């Protein structure tokens, strides 16, 4: 009986370790879905190790990690969540780094609607401007910094011309469907291979809003995992990963 219990216990202990040898689970903020798939594919080609990617909002990931989720690495959509995890002891100390920086864009699904200086935002021809909720999304907060700087927040709000998406994905959908003529969205949502994919855009100058930092952190459970460390290094330093990140419309610190 004792032997059987020992055998079962060792099996239970051995299973996760065996699964971690080649495969490791990475929590990726939904806005970084496409580039992370490409980077994971390149990493697998070069090393044979496979990053299994999960996509969700950063807030959900935080709740899941606090409740025992099997993730080894978090690629967050902000810098606050990884910092909080590190502070609370849920992450490997000193493993936090910025892997991408977001760029804010004023975008319309219509060709030629947005001018090269963003002057359209000050005019009356558009009925609705879509932004992400500033309390929930860093891009939303950045959008309001621009509106505040241009003293547009109060007039647009009192005219009820601002529509709010829960996250940057929803703000994009509101604009993409044409319900809002303009949207303050992420450049990465409309950028393919470094070019505007469709519609018209004004890239908001970086000095008009605080940097949108997306930070990564290695989680406590993988503190001694060399493969996860290798993937984090690959994401941070390899020319291939940096090229992919830039091609999707992010900048690098």
């Amino acid at each position, binding site marked *: 009986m004792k032997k059987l219990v020992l055998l079962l*216990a060792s099996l*239970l202990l051995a299973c996760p370790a065996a699964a971690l040898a080649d495969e490791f689970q990475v929590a990726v903020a939904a806005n970084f*879905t496409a580039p992370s798939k490409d980077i994971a594919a390149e990493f697998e080609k070069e090393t044979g190790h496979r990053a299994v990617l999960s996509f969700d909002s950063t807030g959900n990931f935080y709740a899941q990690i*606090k409740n025992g*989720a*099997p993730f080894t690495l978090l690629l967050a959509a902000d810098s606050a969540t990884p910092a909080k995890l590190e502070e609370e002891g849920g992450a490997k100390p000193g493993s936090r780094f910025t892997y991408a920086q977001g760029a804010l864009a004023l975008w319309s699904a219509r060709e030629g609607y947005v001018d090269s200086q963003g002057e359209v935002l000050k005019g009356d021809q558009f009925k609705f401007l879509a932004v992400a909720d500033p309390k929930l999304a860093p891009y939303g907060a950045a959008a309001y910094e621009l509106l505040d700087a241009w003293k547009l927040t109060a007039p647009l709000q009192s005219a009820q011309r601002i529509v709010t998406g829960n996250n940057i*994905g929803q703000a994009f959908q509101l604009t993409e469907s044409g319900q809002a003529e303009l949207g303050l969205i992420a450049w990465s949502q409309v950028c393919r291979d470094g070019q505007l994919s469709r519609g018209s855009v004004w890239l908001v100058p970086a000095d008009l809003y605080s940097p949108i930092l997306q930070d990564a952190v290695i989680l406590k459970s993988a503190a001694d995992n060399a493969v996860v460390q290798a993937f984090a290094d690959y994401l941070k330093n390899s020319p291939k990963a940096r090229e992919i990140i830039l091609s999707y419309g992010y900048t690098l610190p």
Partner: protein
Amino acid sequence: MLLTPEDWSAIRLSLKLASVTTVLTLAVGAPLAWWLSRGEGWWRRFCGAVVTMPLVLPPTVLGFYLLVFLGPFGPVGRLFGQLGFRLLPFTFSGLVTASVIFSLPFVVQPLQNAFEALGERPLEAAATLGAGPLDAFLTVIVPQTRPAFLTAAVMGFAHTIGEFGVVLMIGGNIPNVTRVLSMQIYVYVETIEYARAHVLAGGMVFFSVAAMLVLQILKPRREKFAQGRI
């Protein structure tokens, strides 16, 4: 290629999840609905309210509480840890557990209504003929309320296929393990691959209409049943 291997994996997972959930929910829900339909005490009403709760709670709230409750620091998670079991969140079993809980009202309600409509007489008749309670339930009640069982099964199955918020929270969106169809659509929408999202979402719309159509076809029989013609 209309569907990718990941799509097929998500579809398989969703069908597996919905099938297992439907069977388990019926197994739990039928006795529960029977008990709820046989009396009025405050304790029974309280249980009825708890069973109905997933209908009104936002899915992410339900998912969050399940995560906390079943996770390593929650009461159920601690018990599981002490017994040496694997924790439920982020596993297929966790998805099944969550799905049974949020599908329960969809199964219990039609059954409870049918049991209440049935009244005491069939059971009394069965008892006078010498049938025990379980025997009477299986040979008298179940055949007479078959349409309600079908409604319950279709509703439970369809609702499990369509659920997103709870399974995202409790499952962690892990490919081949917990990434069901609704999460695969979410991934496509996030990567702005709308064409692929449309294929899956369109399939789901078709499936939902088909499921509701089945219910509509069953409906005349239920009405006849209510009028005592079956």
